[in-house]
């Protein structure tokens, strides 16, 4: 397309040049013809007339004795020469051929030539001279006529006409040039308009883009007393539509959304597409006062309906986050940030996908930012006391000489007290600190267990929770590095994964699992029962352990249905060769029930709450001492 356009412009430029050259040449030619014709012929005629008149005059003066023979001869020669010139050469050709001028001049010259002798040897009283004078007198008025005709006759006009024609041709040429210029201007104008549109608009939906959106927001908030409501619309898990149905389908959905938004917009709503799956509705004027809520709810419902029909699997979720200027925010940047926070809150909330910004969201955001900063500092100094590990024992029913333990992270913040462990993980993940956190965990564990007697440590199996960012191809190398230098052998390490971590890419997960197994590192599926609890994990990935979530264990003894699920999971796991761990066992009757069902390992307050490293060491020593003794006794007895 660009090449075609270039050729077109080149052609236009060539036309410009050609027309200009032609027009100049044409005018030049006509001008030359006209001027040479008019000027030379006028001059030649006028001179001819003068010279003939002079001859007549001199002739008369000579006859009356007032001129001498030399003067007569001179004016005779001059007239002759003039007529001779007139009758030959290119310069006077045009005039010669008009008005029978040539014939007349020849006749006059003939008169001169016939009386040559009378001029050569003159006598004032020579009747031949008088005869010559009469003959000239008879002819000269016709010379005058030709003069007049040449100036005023149709031929003179014809010359003007020629010039006029040239003028018209030039006007036509200029007209063509102007036309081409206009076409070119129009094309350039269209092109620049298109460029302008592309700079400020999104190609797919034709809506303004993020740059235009920010510009518009700044303008809308610039007016004093301006009120603006910003509503951000976001599709979570939109990527899955692209992944499973192709980008064309994804694009179509986005275009439909844009169309729907366009249909419902009014003159007090500004629309923009500000991200791949993010739209903005800016409401101003009256809309920002009272009707924005109803309007945005309506849009929400309409979009919901559209998504339901276009994405029958309901994977894509619609979220809306709203902020108000100046009620919430004092600047454009704040307004966008606050709407983003509301949107984030909408995404995280399972029920309310429509959220209006409130101060609590900002507090949360600021708290997280603050914590992120702190966490980064803490992870940099491994020996800090704010961040530490707790150890919760896991009792192995069939192998009492072995003791399991799960490492739990604790953060005792000086101002905010204890931070919820999932929050710590989330903050680390959101701020790219996942790997640092993993490294810290291992380092702190090694530090804690350094004083464990080898005889005790030998019997303890450590479970560590992995965050999603470290679950990648480098996991095995990294964990091996972190274990380097002991004292814990890889065979005593269990990595706990939640469903969502391993689900992202089953192929990759399988590869990582194989690598871990080669190092004798075991893998546990954590919190089973809280997520999708899909059997496909158990089918596709070979876990060593399965941890049943505490929500299945609590009131297990009193509920009628719960044991059915737990029993089924346990039986299936056992048939797959997976060991079952029950989490959150708190009472003796829960323990009895779960033992009845056949769980292999028990974790929970019934045995012990999470302990400090020292306390856990004590616990482990006692536990192992009594069990080893018991086992020995039993063996001895046998």
């Amino acid at each position, binding site marked *: 397309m660009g090449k075609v356009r270039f050729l077109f412009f080149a052609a236009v430029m060539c036309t410009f040049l050609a027309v200009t050259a032609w027009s100049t040449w044409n005018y030049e030619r006509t001008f030359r013809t006209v001027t040479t014709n008019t000027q030379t012929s006028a001059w030649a005629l006028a001179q001819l007339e003068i010279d003939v008149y002079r001859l007549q005059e001199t002739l008369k003066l000579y006859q009356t004795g007032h001129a001498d023979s030399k003067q007569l001869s001179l004016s005779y020669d001059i007239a002759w020469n003039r007529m001779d*010139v007139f009758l030959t050469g290119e310069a006077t050709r045009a005039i010669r051929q008009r008005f029978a001028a040539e014939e007349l001049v020849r006749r006059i010259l003939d008169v001169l030539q016939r009386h040559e002798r009378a*001029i050569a040897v003159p006598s004032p009283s020579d009747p031949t001279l008088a005869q010559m004078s009469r003959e000239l007198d008879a002819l000269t008025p016709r010379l005058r006529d030709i003069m007049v005709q040449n100036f005023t006759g149709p031929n003179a006009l014809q010359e003007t006409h020629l010039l006029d024609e040239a003028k018209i041709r030039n006007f036509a040429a200029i007209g063509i040039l102007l036309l081409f210029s206009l076409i070119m201007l129009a094309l350039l104008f269209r092109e620049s308009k298109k460029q302008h549109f592309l700079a400020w608009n999104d190609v797919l939906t034709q809506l303004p883009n993020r740059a235009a959106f920010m510009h518009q927001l700044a303008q809308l908030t610039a007016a004093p007393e301006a009120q603006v409501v910003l509503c951000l619309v976001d599709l979570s898990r939109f990527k899955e539509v692209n992944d499973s149905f192709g980008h064309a389908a994804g694009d179509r959905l986005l275009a439909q959304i844009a169309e729907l938004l366009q249909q419902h917009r009014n003159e007090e709503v500004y629309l923009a597409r500000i991200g791949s799956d993010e739209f903005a509705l800016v409401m101003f004027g009256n809309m920002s006062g009272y009707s924005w809520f109803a309007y945005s709810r309506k849009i929400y419902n309409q979009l919901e309906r559209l998504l339901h029909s276009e994405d029958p699997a309901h994977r894509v979720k619609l979220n809306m986050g709203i902020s108000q200027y100046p009620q919430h925010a004092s600047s454009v940047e704040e307004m966008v940030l606050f709407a983003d926070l509301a949107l984030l809150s909408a995404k995280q909330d399972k029920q309310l996908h429509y959220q209006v910004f409130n101060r609590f969201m900002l507090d949360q955001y600021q708290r997280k930012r603050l914590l992120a900063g702190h966490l980064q500092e803490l992870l940099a100094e491994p020996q800090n006391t704010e961040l530490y590990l707790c150890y919760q024992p896991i009792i192995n029913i069939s192998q009492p000489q072995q003791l399991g333990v799960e490492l739990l992270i604790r953060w005792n913040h000086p101002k905010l007290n204890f931070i919820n462990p999932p929050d710590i993980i989330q903050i680390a993940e959101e701020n790219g600190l996942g790997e640092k956190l993993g490294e810290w965990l291992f380092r702190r564990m090694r530090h804690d267990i350094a004083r464990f007697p080898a005889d005790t440590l030998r019997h303890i199996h450590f479970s560590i929770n992995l965050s999603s960012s470290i679950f990648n191809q480098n996991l095995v190398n990294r964990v091996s590095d972190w274990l380097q230098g002991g004292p814990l052998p890889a065979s005593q390490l269990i990595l706990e994964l939640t469903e969502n971590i391993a689900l992202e890419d089953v192929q990759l997960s399988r590869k990582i699992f194989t690598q871990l197994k080669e190092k004798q590192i075991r893998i546990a599926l954590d919190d089973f029962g809280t997520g999708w609890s899909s059997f496909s994990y158990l089918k596709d990935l070979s876990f060593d352990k399965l941890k049943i979530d505490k929500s299945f264990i609590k009131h297990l003894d009193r509920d009628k249905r719960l044991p059915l699920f737990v029993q089924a999971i346990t039986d299936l796991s056992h048939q797959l060769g997976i060991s079952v761990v029950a989490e959150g066992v708190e009472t003796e009757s829960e323990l009895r029930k779960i033992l009845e069902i056949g769980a292999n390992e028990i974790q929970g307050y019934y045995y012990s709450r999470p302990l400090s490293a020292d306390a856990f060491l004590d616990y482990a020593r006692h536990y192992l001492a009594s069990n080893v003794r018991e086992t020995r006794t039993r063996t001895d007895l046998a």
Partner: protein
Amino acid sequence: MNTWRNSLVTLALLGSAAHAMAADDVILTVTRSAGQAHHFTLQQLAALPQASIITATPWTTGKHHYRGVAISTLLQQLQITPQALKVHALNDFWARIPTAVALQYQAILATHVDGQPMSRRNKGPLWIILPLSEHPELNQEKYHNYMVWQARTIEAE
């Protein structure tokens, strides 16, 4: 001057009386700003180094051979270097020729065409000739006007 005229009177060219131009008739007068006048007869001009130009003109048919004295030669002879030459003709026509043009294009004061002296009836006795055929750029009105025929007097300016 008188002895010149007397001794050369017999050498006057004869033929047709009207065509006849006595060799000792003054045919060219060059005047200088100081008021000095230099007169030349055809014979005197013929005694100066000759130059020729073969050219066509708008007033003649076909190319002809013109011979005479180059203007540069004439100025050299008179040892003058004027800015321009105002050439007057017998018929009261005149033209002002920049000396630079006359020198650059080697203009001549032609006295002969195709070996024959030029009569008054045929643009003689002197015709300023520029080499139009050799230099097509000269073929325009401005230069045509410099080509004064029946030249008689030159004012050196």
